[in-house]
């Protein structure tokens, strides 16, 4: 009996993520890490882990794992069915597994990303201080594949049964606050343009950025066709490429960008964006 989880199914995309590797942007290394940070932190607390332990981020569920030894897992994020050996158990609660038990996630009815934490955390080798998979740079472990055997650490604390943690239900309309700048002056009355627009989440969105569809943002007089020298960008930055359609940078974003950033979504609102399905309507409030 060894402390491992064996991957039996991955769903569309399953990645190992912790809280990422901020502090390396000056080397061209993105922060990476879980997109819905509060959900990973909660899963870790429920499994008795420090909040920064590595867990699994699943796009649209479908993950199935076999436990190599007894352990506790917890699944968070949007509401999703969780089964152990074919029997329904609770999400958003500690679930005990014995050796050879199989835990399987269904497909969430709303939202995008569910998180699974295991007592002791997943202990693949860290790179630049983090176990996170960075899809832009190829740093960290490869996306999970059937047959992978994931090492699991020793549990450090008892599972925490928090009473009644209701799963969030991602809405089909999101109003997201924006702090204007650093390049809002490149756009004609940026605050008013943003406030008036309703965007739709593009299916091309990924961990690098949430791409938004809608009427292009108009440049201010004198800024049409102008090029920006590349400059550092933060997670949550709303970059506006030449086509005028914003991209909200998420955890695997490039560290510098050559298009103007009209505003920044504060960190605490990024989890909601990480759960926005294609077609979700979004208002950016400047």
């Amino acid at each position, binding site marked *: 009996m060894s402390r491992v989880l064996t991957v039996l199914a991955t769903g569309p995309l399953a990645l190992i993520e912790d809280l990422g590797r*901020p*502090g*390396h*942007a*000056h*080397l*061209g*290394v993105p922060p990476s890490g879980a997109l819905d940070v509060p959900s990973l932190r909660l899963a870790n607390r429920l499994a008795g882990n420090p909040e920064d332990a590595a867990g699994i981020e699943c796009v649209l569920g479908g993950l199935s794992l076999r436990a190599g030894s007894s352990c506790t897992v917890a699944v968070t994020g949007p509401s999703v069915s969780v089964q152990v050996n074919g029997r329904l158990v609770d999400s958003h609660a500690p679930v005990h597994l014995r050796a050879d038990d199989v835990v399987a996630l269904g497909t969430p009815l709303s939202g995008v990303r569910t998180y699974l934490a295991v007592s002791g955390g997943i202990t693949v*080798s860290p*790179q*630049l201080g983090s176990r996170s998979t960075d899809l832009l*740079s190829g*740093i*960290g472990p490869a996306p999970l594949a059937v047959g992978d055997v994931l090492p699991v650490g020793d549990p450090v604390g008892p599972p925490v049964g928090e009473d009644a943690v209701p799963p969030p239900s991602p809405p089909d309309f999101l109003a997201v606050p924006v*702090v*204007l*700048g*650093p*390049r809002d002056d490149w756009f004609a009355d940026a605050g008013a343009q943003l406030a008036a627009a309703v965007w739709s989440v593009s299916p091309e969105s990924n961990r690098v950025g949430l791409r938004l569809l809608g009427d292009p943002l108009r440049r201010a007089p004198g800024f049409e066709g102008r090029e920006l*020298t*590349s*400059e*550092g*960008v*933060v997670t*949550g*930055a709303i970059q506006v490429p030449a086509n005028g359609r914003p991209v909200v940078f998420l955890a695997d974003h*490039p*560290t*510098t960008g050559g298009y103007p*950033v009209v505003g*920044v*979504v*504060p*960190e*605490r609102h990024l989890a909601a964006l990480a759960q926005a399905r294609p077609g979700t309507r979004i208002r950016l409030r400047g």
Partner: protein
Amino acid sequence: MRLRRCGPDAVLVEVDSLSEVAAARAALTGLPGLVELVPAARTVLVSFEPGSPGSRQVQAVLDQADLSAAPVGDSADVTLPVVYDGADLELVAETAGLSVDEAIALHSSADYTVAFCGFAPGFAYLTGLPELLQQPRLGNPRTRVPTGSVGVAGEFTGIYPRSSPGGWRLVARLADDAAALFDPTREPAALLSPGDRVRFEVVS
């Protein structure tokens, strides 16, 4: 100098030159709650832990700094062994009005400094490129530039840490036995960091 707001916990410092970027970066090093300090060609992005007082100290720190002075820091000296057989070496020499040997001598005798990194992990933009070698990018970028290729573009020279698309004119490549520019399993992962001084050593 101008400060631009970059969300609740970050500031973009805009200056007029690469030397001011280096000085501003040095001045901002070590502020409380600092998370990222990202130099670029005309800016330094400085970000802090949420709610940290550091972001309110940026203006005062920069007001007291002399941005015209060369920064004093803990930068490293790095020598990179390279083979000058780049696919665009003849083009670069011809554009400069030099022989190939003269172009090699010019590129390999200059002292370079890492101004900033970006584009890919470990990709360092080196300044100090002799003026004759400051040349435009290729009109038709390559879809695949091999790992370790040394190129020139505008005022910069740089080395591709891994294979990627790219439009820089290629003059050389890292020697086969040279340390990788970026290896996430190594400590430190990146060979070059902003402020480091770099020389190229000709090997054949």
